[in-house]
C-alpha cells in the first residue's frame, strides 16, 4: 500500500566504517521493542491463552477447558445479537463514511486555493475525543431541543425519538462514529484524487462525459486503492469502537446498540468472566483481521492496480 515502504528499503543503511556495530542497533531499538512487546504483543498472547481456561470469580480453580469458552460464547444468544448489531453498525459506518468521504473529497479536490482552509476544517473532528464527540451528538440529537428535530418540526414533521428508539439510536451512533473517523478516510481519498492526471479527466470531458460520469467511470476506478484503504480504516474503527457508543447510548436503549465490544466490557469488567471475555477479545481480533483481508481481496479482484 505504502509508497517508499521504509521496511523494504535497504539502500539507506550506512556503510561508514565503524558505524555498523549491530549491538548499537540492538541497544537502541530494544527499549521500543520491549515496550511494544509488553503493551501490544503480550496482551494478545495472554488473551489467547487465558481464553482457553475457565476463569471466573465463582471458582477458585481455573481448569484448562480448550475451546470451552468459545463454545460458551457461541451458544449465548446475546453474542449473536451483538454480533448482528456490530455487523449493522460496521456496514452503516462504511456505507455512510465512504459516501461522504467520496463526495467531500471530490468537492475538496476542486476547491480553489483561497478555500484551502476548508480542508483544515474537515480534519477538525480528528482531534476530538470519542467521549466529547459522543456528548456533542447526544446534545444535538436530543429529541426536545436538538437541531434535527427542530428542522423536522419546522418542515411540519413530528419529533423523532432519536435516542430512545432502538433503530434511531443505531443511526445516531453510526453518524457519530462516522463523524469522528471521516477525516482520515477523506484524506486518503483526496490524496488519491490528487494523484490522478488532470489530462485523463479532461480527455473524458472532451469525449463528452459529464463531470459525474467522468467521476464514476474514470476517477473512482483509479482511486480504488485509496477507497480500499478508507474502507479498511472505517471498518477497523467501527469494529473496535467502544468509547463513542458507550458514552452516547451505553448500549441502549435496551440493548439496541450493544455491540460486541460493549459485550466484551460487560463480561470482563462487570461480570468478571475472564475466560469468556478473553475469548471475545480473540473473536474481535479475528473478526477485524478477517474483514481487512476481505477488503484487500475485494480490491485485488475488482481494483485497477
Amino acid at each position: 500500500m505504502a509508497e517508499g515502504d521504509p521496511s523494504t528499503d535497504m539502500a539507506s543503511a550506512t556503510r561508514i566504517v565503524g558505524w555498523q556495530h549491530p549491538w548499537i542497533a540492538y541497544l537502541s531499538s530494544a527499549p521500543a521493542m520491549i515496550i511494544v512487546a509488553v503493551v501490544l504483543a503480550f496482551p494478545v498472547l495472554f488473551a489467547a491463552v487465558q481464553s482457553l481456561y475457565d476463569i471466573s470469580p465463582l471458582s477458585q480453580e481455573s481448569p484448562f477447558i480448550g475451546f470451552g469458552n468459545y463454545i460458551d460464547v457461541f451458544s449465548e444468544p446475546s453474542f449473536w445479537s451483538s454480533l448482528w448489531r456490530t455487523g449493522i453498525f460496521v456496514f452503516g459506518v462504511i456505507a455512510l463514511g465512504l459516501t461522504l468521504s467520496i463526495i467531500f473529497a471530490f468537492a475538496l479536490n476542486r476547491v480553489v486555493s483561497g478555500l484551502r482552509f476548508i480542508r483544515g476544517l474537515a480534519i477538525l473532528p480528528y482531534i476530538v475525543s470519542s467521549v466529547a464527540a459522543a456528548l456533542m451528538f447526544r446534545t444535538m440529537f436530543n429529541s426536545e431541543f436538538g437541531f434535527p428535530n427542530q428542522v423536522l418540526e419546522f418542515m411540519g414533521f413530528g419529533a423523532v425519538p432519536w435516542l430512545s428508539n432502538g433503530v434511531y439510536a443505531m443511526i445516531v451512533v453510526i453518524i457519530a462514529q462516522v463523524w469522528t473517523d471521516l477525516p482520515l478516510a477523506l484524506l486518503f481519498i483526496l490524496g488519491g484524487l490528487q494523484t490522478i492526471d488532470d489530462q485523463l479527466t479532461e480527455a473524458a470531458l472532451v469525449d463528452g462525459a459529464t463531470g459525474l460520469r467522468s467521476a464514476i467511470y474514470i476517477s473512482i476506478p483509479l482511486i480504488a486503492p485509496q477507497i480500499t484503504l478508507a474502507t479498511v480504516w472505517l471498518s477497523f474503527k467501527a469494529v473496535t469502537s467502544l468509547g463513542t457508543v458507550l458514552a452516547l447510548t451505553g448500549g441502549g436503549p435496551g440493548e439496541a446498540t450493544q455491540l460486541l465490544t460493549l459485550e466484551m466490557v460487560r463480561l470482563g469488567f462487570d461480570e468478571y468472566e475472564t475466560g469468556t471475555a478473553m475469548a471475545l477479545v480473540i473473536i474481535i481480533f479475528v473478526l477485524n483481521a478477517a474483514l481487512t483481508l476481505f477488503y484487500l481481496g475485494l480490491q485485488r479482484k475488482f481494483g485497477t492496480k
Partner: protein
Amino acid sequence: MGEVNFRNVMKRFDDGTVAVNDLNFDIEEGEFLVLVGPSGCGKSTSLRMVAGLEAISGGEILIDGEAVNGLTPRERDIAMVFQTYALYPHMTVEQNMGFPLRMAGVSADEKAKRVRAAASVLDLEVLLNRYPRELSGGQRQRVAMGRAIVREPRVFLMDEPLSNLDAKLRVQMRGEIARLQRELGTTTLYVTHDQVEAMTLGDRVAVMHDGILQQLAPPGELYKSPETVFVAGFIGSPPMNLCRATIVEEGGGLAAKFGTFSLSVDPSSIEKYPLVRERIGKDVVLGTRPECFSIATEELPENKHIVAKVDMVEMLGAEALVYLPTDAEQIDSSMTFGNGAARKVASADVQHLSLVARIAPKTVPSHGETVSLGYEADSMHFFDIETGHALR
C-alpha cells in the same frame, strides 16, 4: 604528512559486484593525484575507501604508514568534497565551515579565526551568514572547499567536485582548486571522469577501467606512451584511432597493414615498442592519433601515406575533423582484454574503423574528395591484441 598507499586493495559489494580489484599505488606527500576513468569504473569506491565511507574488502590502505582499514572516518584525519557538496542545510556558511573544528573541539575564538581565514582565501566573507539554499552553485562549491580546508587535514579527497557546475565556472574553479592545492601543499586525491580535468590538474594521473588501474603517470606520459589500449583510447580528444593491423616485413623495415591500407613503421616507433619486432606476420592493435595526420601537399612514397575518400568533415574553427571510412577492423578500447576477448570476431560483426584526422582548417578537403594523408612517422602505437598491453 599525508602519504597514502594502496596495497592490493579490493572492494566487493554485498551483491557480489567487484568494484575495485587489486589496486596498488602510492600518493606521495603533497602530491595532486587524479583518478580518472569512465563512469562506474570504481573511482568513487576507491576514494570512499580512503575516507572510511566504504569498508575495504581486501588489502590495505595506509595513511602515513598506518593501515586505516578499521578506523572510522573521524580517526583518519581527512577531508572530503562531495559531488553534491553535502552542505548541512540547517547551518549557515560559517557553521558549515566551522563544523569540522567544532567536532574537533577547537575553541570558539580559534574556530572563528580559522573560518574567517579560509573564507577570505575562498572569497566567501560576505556569505558567512547565508544558508546553503541561498547560494549559487559556484558559491556552494566554494563553501564545500572551505569546509575541507579549515581543518588542515592530512589528505583532501574530492569526488567530481566540479561536475555540477556549468562549463565556464568549471574552468574557473579548476584553476582555483589547482592554486589552492599548490598553496596549501596538502596531499590530494581527486576523482573525475573528465580527462581534461585530469590532465590539467594532476601531478600524476591514474587511469582506471573496470575496477583495475590501467596506468599511473604524469599527464604528458599518459598521452605519449599509453600502457594499454584502454588508456590509448581514453586519453586524447578526439580519441586515438585503434584498429587491427598485421605487422609485415617490407623493404628491410616493418610495415603495419590494416585493411587495404599500409603504413611503414618508423625505427623510432620500433624503439618505443620493441616487441613489435616479434610480431612479424601477426596481428596487433595499431593506434594512430588524429592530430598526427596531415594533408599531403606533395607526392609521398607508398607506405608513408594513406589515400581515402572523405566521408564527413566537422569544422571546429581552429581545426577540422575529417572522417575517412576504412576497411580495417575497429578495436573498441573499452572492451575487456585478456581472456581472449579480442579473438577474431566473425567477419559479419566486424566494425570498420572510421579514421579521424585532425587537421588545420586551411587545408580542409570537402566531402567526397579523395585525399592523401601523411602521418608523423614516430608516433605510432602498438598493443598486444590479446592482452591490450603496449608492446614494450
